[in-house]
């Protein structure tokens, strides 16, 4: 008996952003292949154009407020949350490429494949933000990770880069094992991989009797394993060990891209899983995430205190920020989604900017990134020092910067949810964090230069730093338009809802 073929209705609009970026990346790979000469800057500019086109497509297909579209057997959803996240991710990717274009040739690691790989990774991130099926979540994580393994090891003659790539690969594969095993258990328990259906299954099976039904138990165990898999990707504290080594070894633009983009996309996917599928288990995952967030905020910031190496300091600071974002995730269902998006954008601007400043001071054949290089920067390059100070203040959460409102919204949402202890720990760890962010500022403005460092400027770096400074200050002074944007970014809780 031949199987019955039901060709599903396909709504291309739902996947239009990722379709655009994947197609552009594939064509760019071919264009780069047949492009003569050694100079690969044109590939970079074409990649930027691709990101711009994808942003336009995303805006063109964005759903009307409060509605969502699903397609491909309800595996992907296009809701306003997905659209906003996609735009933020595209901005992050554009920053990463802009600061890469001269970096690669300066450090003699220029290969045209770099740019298509960034585009593919961005596509994977967009996919993560939109998928409502655990198979697609897994594939998105893999697409993102495989690309980043390669990009991490991109700095060829540098052994640390190789080491970083291998470390990331091994731990990433280990994490993928947790993720796929958890997904298998969830499938075994619920009989479906669809997030909406898992949520419905849990609601009905938990409502039936007082006893814990075996299916729901399997979903609970599977959910815990999926959470562990994600904790590796977003480097929450017991699973963060790879972060400083990998960031230090990889090319600086790639570290910047990873620290913001990977985190944002993985958090978005986790948020969707928690709020759509595992909401009936909130009593279980809430305390777990609370402990993880507390550990992450405290440990990340305390470890960053002791770093004389700026790149490692930023790595530990990104661990700490993952803790704050986790608080945003925990309040999913009330104001979690909007505080998450606001925090992500504020953090993306400040962190990409800080990494860009780091790149201006990075010299060929050197792997120092010492805080000493920032000493006395104010006297020689006042604008650069002011930019760096803005980013440090924003990362520390001092007004009037976007970072302040990011922290404010996260803490406010947690307070409203009754998570008083977490708010307390968050404020405490922010105070610790202020030490090392302010130390950088002190050294820039108060100290004498330790050695002669001539920053490298080029168009991509200048524009990135400029946009990041302006964005950080404008959103710090006038957060209202951004707030209304993120408030309208709602996660679709049902099919076509």
């Amino acid at each position, binding site marked *: 008996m*031949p*199987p*019955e*073929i*039901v*060709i*599903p209705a*396909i709504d291309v609009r739902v*996947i239009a952003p990722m379709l655009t970026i*994947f197609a552009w990346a*594939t064509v760019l*790979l071919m264009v780069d292949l047949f492009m003569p000469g050694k100079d690969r800057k044109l590939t970079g500019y074409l990649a930027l154009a691709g990101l711009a086109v994808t942003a336009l497509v995303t805006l063109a297909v964005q759903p009307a407020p409060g509605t969502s579209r699903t397609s*491909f*057997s309800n*595996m*992907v959803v296009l809701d306003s949350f997905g659209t906003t996240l996609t735009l933020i991710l595209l901005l992050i990717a554009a920053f990463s490429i802009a600061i890469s274009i001269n970096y690669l040739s300066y450090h*003699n*690691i220029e*290969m045209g*494949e770099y740019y*298509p*790989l960034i585009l*593919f990774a961005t*596509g994977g991130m967009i*996919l993560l933000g939109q998928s409502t*099926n655990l*198979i*697609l979540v897994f*594939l*998105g994580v*893999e*697409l993102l990770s*495989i*690309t980043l*393994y*390669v990009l991490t*090891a*991109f700095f*060829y*003659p540098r*052994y*640390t880069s190789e080491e970083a*790539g291998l470390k990331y690969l091994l731990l990433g594969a280990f994490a993928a094992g947790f993720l796929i095993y958890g997904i298998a258990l969830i499938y075994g328990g619920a009989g479906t991989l669809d997030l909406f259906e898992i949520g419905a299954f849990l609601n009905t099976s938990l409502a039936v009797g007082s006893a814990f039904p075996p299916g729901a138990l399997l979903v609970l165990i599977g959910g815990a394993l999926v959470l562990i898999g994600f904790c590796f990707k977003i480097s929450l504290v017991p699973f963060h060990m790879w972060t*400083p*080594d990998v960031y*230090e070894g990889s090319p600086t633009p790639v570290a910047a891209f990873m620290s913001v983009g990977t985190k944002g996309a993985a958090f978005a996917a986790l948020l969707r899983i928690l709020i759509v599928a595992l909401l009936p288990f909130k009593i279980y995952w809430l305390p777990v995430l609370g402990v993880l967030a507390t550990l992450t905020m405290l440990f990340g910031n305390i470890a960053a205190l002791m770093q*004389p*190496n700026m790149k*490692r300091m930023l790595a530990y600071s990104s661990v700490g920020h993952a803790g704050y974002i986790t608080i945003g995730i925990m309040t999913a269902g009330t104001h979690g989604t909007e505080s998450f998006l606001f925090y992500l954008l504020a953090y993306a601007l400040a962190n990409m900017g800080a990494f860009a400043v780091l790149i201006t001071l990075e010299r060929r*054949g*050197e*792997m*120092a990134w*010492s805080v000493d290089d920032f000493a006395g920067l104010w006297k020689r390059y006042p604008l650069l020092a002011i930019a760096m100070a803005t980013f440090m203040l924003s990362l520390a959460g001092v007004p009037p910067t976007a970072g302040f409102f990011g922290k404010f919204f996260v803490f406010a949402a947690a307070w409203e949810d009754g998570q008083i202890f977490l708010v307390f720990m968050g404020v405490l760890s922010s105070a610790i964090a202020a030490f090392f962010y302010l130390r950088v500022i002190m050294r820039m403005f108060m100290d004498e230069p330790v050695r002669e460092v001539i920053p490298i400027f080029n168009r991509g770096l200048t524009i990135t730093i400029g946009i990041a400074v302006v964005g950080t200050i404008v959103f710090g002074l006038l957060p209202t338009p951004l707030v209304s944007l993120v408030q309208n970014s709602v996660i679709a809780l049902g099919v076509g809802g």
Partner: protein
Amino acid sequence: MSFELFMFLVTAAIALAGGVGMIVARNTVHSALFLLLNFFAIAVLFLLLHSPFLFAIQLTIYAGAIMVLFLFVVMLLGVESIEDRTKDRLAGQLWLSVVLTLILMVQAITITLLAEPAESQAQNTALLDQLADPALIGATLFTTYLLPFQITGVILLVGIVGVVVLHQRAHLYGPLSETEREFAEQYAAERTASGQPAEQAS
């Protein structure tokens, strides 16, 4: 004894022999060949479980490609340079493996004891035959699971690019110079000595 049970016992014995042989073989290449035997036996076990598609995948991917990769890794690292395998480098791993194996066995026995009565098993087998039909897998793969299928294609493309990029960097820059090599060794030594990253190395 039915033909199926007979086949199962023979295949399971071969699979076990392959697994044990892989662990006890002194020569790494022999280990890999024992693993190949194990892969083949597992493939036949899939067939006995009425899953012809998994049978084909097991043979092409595992017994074919993955095995070739394993053998190349062994040959790449050099069989003769592998350290004395009689020494246990991870203390306690033997006992840990025994405990974990016992847990797995308990799980397997529990599942067997909890198995459903024979008549519903026959029903399940019929259902399984229907579901594991490769044609049906094809029909679902290209309709319901269309998007994951295409994303897999993208991932494979990225994989190809990654292999070539990581391999060809060396061609672009040539082998490491003497200073670069020295630096790398010094860096690694410093790092292991202090447990801290090396600062200011240039």
